[in-house]
């Protein structure tokens, strides 16, 4: 559906997007995840033809965005970071204008407008001037504009910004429903939002794609990077000496425990298998009783921080 090849965008000296490549399949919801300034909006702006890339290529449904811009753009509904609203128009006037601009066929233009406005929940403000609307409503008008004509690809840049929690849930449901027939790409810097609705997650950091996988795979991957938190009877020195005997294990963190004569440590395995049993016998054999053990699962949140290089001390 969408192919992005070696996309690079420079703003002067600043490298906003760095050699980004990915493909987007039909009928799925994709989430662009990354901290602020990671290049999410820039990538979206390039994909929709608003910005030109320094190098690289974007192909929308077989049409190059530069060579056949009109065909490519006709496939896309886009809600930018700031909804592009003419504030001196009423909502209905604006929707009519957008429908005409998108060249929706005349006969079904009214139905399209009604459908989009209903989906975004703005029918009750149809006759109000956009400048008098609250931020949440403006955001929804922008969303309605993107949904006009139900294009095969819908790109939403931070669609839930400015909405209250109830509206956020509504919009998420809208997006989930859209994802059945349309390709939806949305961006956010909020992980829970992405993991709640997206089938596929693309994590972007400093303009680079650092992970691209389904939500389940990423979650599994997060679990697999296993480590154990232990409380052992013995001094930290004894514990360290012992662990160093086993080349498979690695001490991540070691400090004296709260009780006298104990040591707390964070242990990581170089392999991905479950090491709990092995560690238990290993310590028992060397007469260092384990007082407590818990499996420390790295959450999706931590994986995200790790991948985007924002974790403390990295």
């Amino acid at each position: 559906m969408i192919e992005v090849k070696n996309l690079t965008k420079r703003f002067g000296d600043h490298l906003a997007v760095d050699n980004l490549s990915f493909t987007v399949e039909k009928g799925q919801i994709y989430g662009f995840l990354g901290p602020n300034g990671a290049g999410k909006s820039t990538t979206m702006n390039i994909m929709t033809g608003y910005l030109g890339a320094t190098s690289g290529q974007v192909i929308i449904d077989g049409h190059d965005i530069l060579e056949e811009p009109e065909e490519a753009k006709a496939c896309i509904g886009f809600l930018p970071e700031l909804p592009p609203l003419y504030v001196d128009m009423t909502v209905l006037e604006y929707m009519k204008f957008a429908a005409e601009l998108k060249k929706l066929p005349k006969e079904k233009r009214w139905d399209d407008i009604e459908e989009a406005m209903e989906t975004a929940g703005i029918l009750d403000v149809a006759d109000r001037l956009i400048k008098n609307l609250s931020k949440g409503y403006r955001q929804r008008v922008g969303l309605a504009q993107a949904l006009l004509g139900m294009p095969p690809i819908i790109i939403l840049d931070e669609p839930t910004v400015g909405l209250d929690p109830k509206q956020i849930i509504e919009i998420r449901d809208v997006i989930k429903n859209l994802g059945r027939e349309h390709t939806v790409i949305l961006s956010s810097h909020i992980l829970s939002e992405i993991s709640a609705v997206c089938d596929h997650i693309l994590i972007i950091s400093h303009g680079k794609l650092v992970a691209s996988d389904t939500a389940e795979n990423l979650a599994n991957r997060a679990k697999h990077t296993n480590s154990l938190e232990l409380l052992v009877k013995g001094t930290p020195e004894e514990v360290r000496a012992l662990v160093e005997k086993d080349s498979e294990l690695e001490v991540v963190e070691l400090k004296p425990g709260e009780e006298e004569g104990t040591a707390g440590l964070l242990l990581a395995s170089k392999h991905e298998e479950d090491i709990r049993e092995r560690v238990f016998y290993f310590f028992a054999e060397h007469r260092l009783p384990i007082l407590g053990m818990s499996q420390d699962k790295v959450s999706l949140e931590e994986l995200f921080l790790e991948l985007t290089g924002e974790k403390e001390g990295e």
Partner: protein
Amino acid sequence: MLAVYKREFKSYFTSLTGYLFMAFILFFIGLYFTAYNLSNYYVASFTYPLYSVNFVFMIAIPILTMRTLADDRKSKTDQLLLTSPVSVTKIVLGKYLAMVSVYFLVCVVCALGPLVISQYGTPNFRTDYAMLLAFFLSGCAYLAIGLYISSLTESPVLACIGTFGALLILYLLSDIGGLIPIDAVGSLFTSLSIQERLMNFANNLLDLPSLIYFLSVAGFFVFMSIQSVNKRRWH
């Protein structure tokens, strides 16, 4: 293109801009009309009022042009326009033609001038309407210049000041030309002056090259505006 055109045209009349623009020019035409035709001089010609209001454009044109492209960029509505399946050429042309249409309304009102005169004297309709045509096309040239300057910035205020400056220089061009001792350069300046060319029409001359000149200036600056919007994507 029609969608952009309609929206722009309508927006000039949902805000004060269009009315202000029309009222401003028509007020001064009326003033000169009164002075030349109804009181002091009693000439039965509409060409003088049209010629005399040339300086008014310095202020009137920026009223209309300052927001046209600059404001879209400022309020990010250009993201809607530029990501829609409409070419940049059509977007810019739609906006330009909306301004031309507002200005055309001014000319429609002006077209009544010679008819009013004919009630009381014998105007030379050919000269008057030839002048009106020149007046219309010269205005189109001014509007294109304003459009281009508006495409260069995202601040309507800067666009306004820039357009005022550009039109002021254009207005003074024939005077500047007179100051330059080198004949060739001096006459080049004079020949670029829109005002100097309007003089020909006021002097009862249907000056075809001048009409072509006005159209060329309009075409050139509309083309430059399109290029300027296109270029912005690659900054």
